[in-house]
C-alpha cells in the first residue's frame, strides 16, 4: 500500500516536472526566438525611405528595383523627386523631346526651305512673264504726299527689325547645315550666340513697329466693297491697261497688312513665351477653347491629347514660332518684290513719302480723289477766310 502511494506521488512529480518544462519552453524559449526574429525582420507597419512602391513583397523581404526596371521607368518619362526648387528637373528623359528633335531635323528643315525657295521661284517666274509693272501714262512730274514721316518710320522699324529677326531666326534652323560648313565651328559658335541675343532684343523693336503701324493704318485697311472688285480683276497685276479703283490701300495691300499684323502678333506671343519659358500653357488653353466648338485640333494634327506639360508647351511654341516665321518671310518676299523691282514708282511711297500723281491715279484712284477733294476744301477755306 505504501509502495502504491509512492508510485502515485512519483507520477504526480513527473507530471509536474513535464508541465514545468513545457511552461518554461513556451514562456522563455519561444519569446526569445520571437525576439531573435524581430531583430532581422521589420514589423508589418514599418516604413523605410528605401522601400519600393507597391504592395508588400512575399516574406516581407525588402528589395529594390532592378536597373532595367529603373531605366525602363525613366525612359517612359516617370518623374522622380529632386532636392531642389525646380521639380521639373526630376524628369530625366522626355520622350516627346525626341519627336520634337526629329521634327526639327526633318520636316522643319526641308519644308521651310521648300516654302521660301518656292516663293522666290514663283516671283521670278511672275517677273519673267509680266515684267515690271510700269506707269502707263508715264511720270507726270507732279508729286503727291502718300505717307508721313511717322508712317514711314514705323514701316522701316518693322522692316529693319524683321530682317534681323529673320536672319538670326533662320540661323537656328539652317545655320548648322548651311553656315557651319562654310565658316567653321570657331566662328559659327560665337556668331550664333550673338545672333540669338540680337534676336531676343530686336524682337521688342519689331513689336513696337507693329503696334505703331496698327494704330496708324488699321482704319485704312478695313475691308470694303472696292476690294471685291479689285480682287476680281486681279488687282490689274495680271493684265496691262487694267487699273481697278482702290482707296489708300488696295485689297492686296490689305492682305499684306492683316497678314503682317496677325502673323506678327502670333510671332510676338510665341516668342515671348520662348523668352520667358515654363510660365504659360497657350496650347493647352487654345486647344481646349477650340474643343468647346467641336474642333479637336490635336486629333486632326495627330498630336498627343492635352493638357500638356510646360516642357511640351515649349516644344509646341518652338514649332509654331518657326512655322509662322517662315510664312511671314514668304509674305514679305512678295511685299519686297512688288515694292521694288515689281512695280515702277512704288518704292517712292516708303522712300521719300511722295509718289508720282500718275502712279497714284493708276493704283489708288479713289484715294487720289479724296486727297484732291481735301486740298480743294482747304483751298476754298483759305480763300474764304480773309473775306470773312
Amino acid at each position: 500500500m505504501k509502495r502504491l502511494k509512492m508510485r502515485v506521488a512519483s507520477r504526480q512529480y513527473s507530471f509536474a516536472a513535464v508541465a514545468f518544462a513545457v511552461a518554461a519552453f513556451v514562456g522563455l524559449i519561444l519569446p526569445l526566438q520571437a525576439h531573435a526574429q524581430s531583430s532581422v525582420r521589420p514589423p508589418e507597419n514599418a516604413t523605410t525611405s528605401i522601400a519600393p512602391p507597391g504592395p508588400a513583397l512575399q516574406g516581407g523581404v525588402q528589395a529594390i528595383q532592378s536597373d532595367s526596371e529603373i531605366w525602363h521607368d525613366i525612359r517612359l518619362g516617370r518623374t522622380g523627386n529632386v532636392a531642389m526648387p525646380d521639380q521639373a528637373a526630376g524628369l530625366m528623359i522626355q520622350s516627346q523631346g525626341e519627336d520634337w528633335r526629329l521634327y526639327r531635323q526633318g520636316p522643319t528643315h526641308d519644308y521651310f526651305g521648300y516654302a521660301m525657295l518656292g516663293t522666290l521661284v514663283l516671283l521670278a517666274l511672275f517677273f519673267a512673264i509680266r515684267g515690271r509693272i510700269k506707269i502707263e501714262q508715264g511720270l507726270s512730274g507732279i508729286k503727291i504726299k502718300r505717307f508721313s514721316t511717322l508712317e514711314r518710320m514705323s514701316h522701316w522699324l518693322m522692316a529693319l527689325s524683321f530682317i534681323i529677326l529673320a536672319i538670326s531666326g533662320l540661323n537656328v534652323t539652317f545655320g548648322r547645315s548651311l553656315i557651319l560648313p562654310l565658316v567653321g565651328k570657331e566662328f559659327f559658335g560665337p556668331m550664333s550666340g550673338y545672333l540669338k541675343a540680337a534676336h531676343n532684343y530686336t524682337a521688342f523693336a519689331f513689336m513696337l513697329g507693329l503696334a505703331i503701324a496698327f494704330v496708324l493704318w488699321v482704319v485704312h485697311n478695313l475691308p470694303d466693297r472696292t476690294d471685291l472688285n479689285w480682287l476680281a480683276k486681279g488687282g490689274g497685276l495680271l493684265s496691262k491697261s487694267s487699273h481697278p479703283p482702290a482707296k489708300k490701300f488696295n485689297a492686296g495691300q490689305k492682305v499684306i497688312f492683316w497678314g503682317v499684323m496677325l502673323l506678327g502678333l502670333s510671332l510676338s506671343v510665341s516668342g515671348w513665351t520662348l523668352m520667358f519659358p515654363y510660365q504659360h500653357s497657350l496650347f493647352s488653353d487654345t486647344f481646349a477653347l477650340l474643343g468647346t466648338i467641336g474642333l479637336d485640333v490635336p486629333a486632326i494634327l495627330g498630336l498627343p491629347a492635352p493638357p500638356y506639360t510646360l516642357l511640351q508647351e515649349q516644344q509646341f511654341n518652338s514649332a509654331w514660332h518657326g512655322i509662322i516665321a517662315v510664312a511671314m518671310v514668304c509674305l514679305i518676299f512678295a511685299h519686297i518684290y512688288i515694292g521694288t523691282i515689281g512695280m515702277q514708282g512704288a518704292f517712292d511711297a516708303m522712300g521719300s513719302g511722295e509718289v508720282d500723281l500718275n502712279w497714284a491715279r493708276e493704283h489708288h484712284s479713289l484715294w487720289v480723289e479724296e486727297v484732291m477733294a481735301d486740298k480743294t476744301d482747304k483751298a476754298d477755306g483759305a480763300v474764304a477766310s480773309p473775306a470773312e
Partner: protein
Amino acid sequence: MKAFLLSIAVLVLVVAGARFGLKPLWDMPSDKAFSTENVRLD
C-alpha cells in the same frame, strides 16, 4: 531718308533698352539660383 534714319535710332534705343532692362529677368542671381533654402533631404 529722315524716316529711315529715325527708324534706325529707335531700333538702337529699343534694343539697348531691352538689353539692359531685361537682363535682370533673364539672368538669375547666383545667390538665388544656388540657394539651399528649399533643399529637402529625406
